[in-house]
């Protein structure tokens, strides 16, 4: 759906030419969340901003749904792409409703349709429209503002969403909550999302695929499990952390490694939708090597064993 082909950005500085982004090629399938990950200065934000042409590429091509973005008027292009920034950037002179309505208005929607859409979006993000529509950004808490920012990006129902460290301005406790909400929302909306982050844990949690950058080059592009299980080089290995195996556990569900029920009946159970981190914790806490798995109704449907987990981790 979004394809980057040999994308390069070179800046001409007084110290010579600096390649901020070097020959990046990747493809993000429709409906997937791709996280651009890396240390600061690695080119991930520049890459993101080339997609909506806030930065002009020096060479290379970007296509969205087959169309070359270079061939379209930049302003028109941006109205079809949702954009969320770290500082949120709600316009203080406009109410929440007006903020959300910016792109719809630019696209010529009428007032009634725009307002209805704003109500829908606020409701979807767990903000009571009656209370929030006519508030000003200065009257919102950090978490509320962040959600309105996301609503604003989704207002015209763009197929693509670009997010530049969108949860960075929120405190760590609320960040977890907002990340979960976003994942739930993505399940329903299935937007194609490109998400910049410097936090490996956030990337592992949110991404369908991760593009890890260093000094402008794409070091590895893979789903989280593969990135953690088979890092392409020392840099990636160092970046994902020495506890990468433990990180992997979060992204693997019990249902993936569950075997037939074998009567390991006593003790705690895990549900088929739990992740392996919970399984590992229970293994360690109770000193067992196998746990029964139950479905939503509480019926035992299988067993998860330490051996099965090890096999799964080793296989990739």
């Amino acid at each position, binding site marked *: 759906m979004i394809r980057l082909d040999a994308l390069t950005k070179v800046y001409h500085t007084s110290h010579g030419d600096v390649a901020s982004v070097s020959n990046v090629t990747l493809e993000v399938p429709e409906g997937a969340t791709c996280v651009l990950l890396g240390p600061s200065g690695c080119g991930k934000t520049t890459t993101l*901003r080339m997609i*909506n042409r*806030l930065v002009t590429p020096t060479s290379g091509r970007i296509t969205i749904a087959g169309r070359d973005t270079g061939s379209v008027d930049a*302003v*028109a*292009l*941006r*109205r*079809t*792409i949702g*954009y969320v*920034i770290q*500082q949120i*950037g709600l*316009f*203080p*002179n*406009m*109410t929440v409703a007006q903020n959300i309505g*910016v*792109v719809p208005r*630019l696209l010529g929607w009428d007032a009634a349709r725009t307002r209805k859409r704003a109500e829908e979006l606020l409701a979807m993000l767990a903000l009571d429209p009656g209370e929030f529509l006519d508030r*000003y*950004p*200065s*009257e*919102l*808490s*950090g978490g*509320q*503002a962040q959600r309105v920012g996301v609503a*604003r990006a989704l207002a015209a129902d763009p197929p693509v969403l*670009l997010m530049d460290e969108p949860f960075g301005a929120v405190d760590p406790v609320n960040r977890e909550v907002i990340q979960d909400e976003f994942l739930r929302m993505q399940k329903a909306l299935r937007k194609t999302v490109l998400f910049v982050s410097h936090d490996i844990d956030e990337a592992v949690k949110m991404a369908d695929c991760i593009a890890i950058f260093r000094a402008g080059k794409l070091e590895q592009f893979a789903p989280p499990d593969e990135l953690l299980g088979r890092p392409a080089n020392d840099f990636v290995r160092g970046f994902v952390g020495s506890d990468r195996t433990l990180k992997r556990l979060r992204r693997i569900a019990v249902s993936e490694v569950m075997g037939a029920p074998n009567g390991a009946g006593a003790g705690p159970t895990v549900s088929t939708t739990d992740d392996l981190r919970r399984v590992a914790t229970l293994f360690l806490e109770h000193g067992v090597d196998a746990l029964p798995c139950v479905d939503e109704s509480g019926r035992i449907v299988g067993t998860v064993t330490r051996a099965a987990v090890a096999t799964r981790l080793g296989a990739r």
Partner: protein
Amino acid sequence: MLRTLSISMVPQRSLVPYVVLGAIALSIVWGLVASGMWNDMLRYRKDVVYLTKQHLVLVGVSGSLAIVSGVALGIWLSRPWMRRYAEATIQVVNMGTAIPTLGKLALIMTVLGIGALSAIVGLWIATLLPIIRNTYVGIRAVPHHLVDAAQGMGMSPTTILRRVELPNAMFVIFAGVRTAMAINVGTAPIAFLIGGGGLGELIFTGIDLQEFGMMLAGAIPTALLAVAVDFVFGQAQYWLVPRGVNPLRAS
């Protein structure tokens, strides 16, 4: 950032300043009547009415010219392509605002001679400079990430100016307009000296003739007019700048 509205947070507008002002005003009126000055002043009733109208025309024309051209020039200076020249130009504008208005009027006079034109041009320039500066500073002070978000959403540069930059600079621009209009009304009496008419006629002639009644007949309406104009612009600033960007109205 969360603020729930509670009684303790509603600004308690103390009435004391107004009471004190009222007391002072009353004592001034009493003093005038008691000393007989009031009667002297009344002799110039007709002149006051006529000259006030002249004064208002002077203020109105030069003021509106200054507001329109000042804001336009301020916007122009704030544009990205003007960046190189903007700082230097603003320094010159700053220096210009420091120059006493009498000096500025005198300079205009050397070029344009005596007359209403000189007066209006002189007043226009004196009023213009603070407006240019505040417009420029106000627009440049709009946080860059707001402009970035607006660009990223697909707003054209004109729309960004209209819907993001100007509204967020509005409060500062209004402050500049208010200051400038105070300067304007304050300078208008002096415009009499270069042929502009207005209430200054009564004041300066009164000083020359040492006629206190005449002086006061000119001075007091001038002072009242200045306070009234400032009040009007203060109210305009309070009501016209939207709540979200108006610290005076923040809830």
